[in-house]
């Protein structure tokens, strides 16, 4: 065999294990999900499996639970993404201005992100519990009334978001801090020599230079927020009165509690379409707006 021929045989052999896995667990599932979305496929009534065209999609659009799920997901997103952005940016600026001990503080902020969602939820359920919770214990101790952290519609979602912020802020802070540190020192010094105020420095130099990273952070966290599941599922099970049951939890319950696989797959594609639309709009808007 010639050298090049031998090399391409090797190349295929090296690629084969991953390519096989990719084909089996990415390509095939996507095709199956696409097919299922147009079928009635209930695990409890397999004999009634049939092609139904767009019926699953039109059912979703008329399903009050679907819209309630979207509403819950959006109310998480609207609190979470701006909250995360502002808090993490503030932390990153604070860290950037530190001369000593920066890495220790950075590591401590990052640590909660290493916890899995079950541990995080257990910890915060102990804080939030109405009767035995730590927060209400402290509130009562200092003479204030207990709060319905997880049992009242008005409090439940903000409580979930506060926990999520604690859990997720480190990663975003670290990304933003790295971007801040890449701003060339000469530019900042030149601006200071020209007498720029701190506010001008921030709006004229820091913000424009951070634009690509901020875009990344907003889009990535929006995509993540649309897929929120573990935090509300474990803290409130979607309650009270389904007010915190997001779309992913509704899809999960449709497919794995009610065994309606076709309908679940169709709603997954709808959620994907919504995510793609949001990401596209944000990308277009943020790419052009700040300049």
């Amino acid at each position: 065999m010639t050298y090049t021929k031998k090399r391409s045989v090797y190349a295929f052999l090296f690629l084969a294990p991953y390519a096989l896995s990719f084909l089996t667990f990415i390509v095939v599932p996507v095709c199956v999900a696409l097919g299922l979305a147009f079928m009635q496929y209930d695990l409890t009534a397999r004999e009634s499996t049939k092609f139904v065209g767009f019926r699953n999609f039109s059912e979703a659009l008329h399903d009050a639970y679907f819209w309630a799920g979207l509403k819950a997901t959006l109310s998480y997103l609207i609190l979470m993404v701006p909250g995360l952005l502002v808090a993490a940016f503030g932390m990153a600026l604070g860290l950037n201005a530190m001369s000593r001990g920066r890495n220790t503080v950075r590591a401590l902020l990052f640590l909660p992100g290493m916890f899995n969602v079950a541990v995080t939820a257990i910890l915060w359920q102990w804080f939030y519990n109405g009767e035995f919770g730590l927060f209400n214990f402290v509130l009562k101790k200092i003479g204030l009334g207990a709060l319905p952290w997880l049992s009242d519609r008005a409090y439940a979602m903000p409580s979930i978001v506060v926990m999520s912020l604690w859990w997720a802020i480190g990663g975003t802070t670290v990304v933003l801090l790295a971007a801040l540190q890449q701003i060339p020192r000469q530019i900042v010094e030149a601006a200071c020599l020209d007498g720029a105020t701190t506010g001008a420095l921030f709006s004229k130099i820091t913000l424009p230079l951070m634009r690509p990273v901020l875009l990344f952070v907003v889009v990535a966290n929006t995509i993540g927020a649309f897929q929120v599941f573990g935090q509300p599922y474990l803290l409130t099970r979607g309650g009270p009165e389904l007010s915190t049951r997001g779309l992913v939890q509704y899809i999960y319950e449709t497919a794995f509690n009610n065994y309606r696989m076709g309908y679940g797959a169709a709603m997954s594609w709808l959620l994907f379409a919504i995510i793609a639309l949001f990401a596209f709009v944000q990308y277009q808007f943020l790419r052009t707006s700040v300049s």
Partner: protein
Amino acid sequence: MTKVFRSLNALIMRVLAFIFLSPVILMILTSLKPEPEVLNPASAIPHHWTLSNFKQVLGWSEEAPFARWLLNSVFISTSATLLVLLFSSMAAYAIVRLRVPGGNVFLAVIVATMMLPAQLFLVPLYLMLSRLHWLDTPAALIVPVTAGGFGVFMLSQFMRSVPEAIEEAALMDGCSSLGVFQHVVLPLCAPAIATLGIFTFIGSWNDFMGPLIFMDSVRNYTLPVGIALYQTSYYTEYGLTLATSALATAPLIVVFMLFQRQIVDSMASTGLKD
């Protein structure tokens, strides 16, 4: 910036770091308290230090085999990580160095599929794994993970930045492609491989939805799903549930302390890629 501002900022940041850490400290301290003290905490520090919560958690029980869950988690996360490292580094080598025909198109397809949300795969994967009779076995949580595109993408990018001259020299000296991969490429890519390994391990260790959907019997659960279940049945015994949480988190805290620099730095750079 003035000196006053700087020291004020440093103080605020340290206080914030302490506030962030305090739930973790409270978790550990409270898991060392006897139950009456947990519900009526006179102070954060236990009056009577006790290991009884940990003893009860680690003691074998049919409803909550904690040691078994720990073993499942260790086995699944380790296997998944090793397979991901092997498959991804081989694929990246084939694409970047052996220049497999159509390799770059394949890489573009891989990156495109990374944008598909995980929840899209739940239903089809469940049905496929049930056909394969892999439901309720570790394979369901190990093998599909190897299809993830992040590793191939990241290692390809890294390999491109490593000079090819060393590999050519090894080839000239009569080293086979496999030898070059094993003795030259893998060692040169060690930092990227370590980063990928850490991320894959943490991701697998903390996966919640996968085991929740694919595992049926209690003894086959991994830690996150196991302790979530445990918590629903013992939900007011916080000493116990916090002890399970502390135990489940301890391995990750050790990994984090050992690789803190690497984890945080690579997290920072993944956000800066584009």
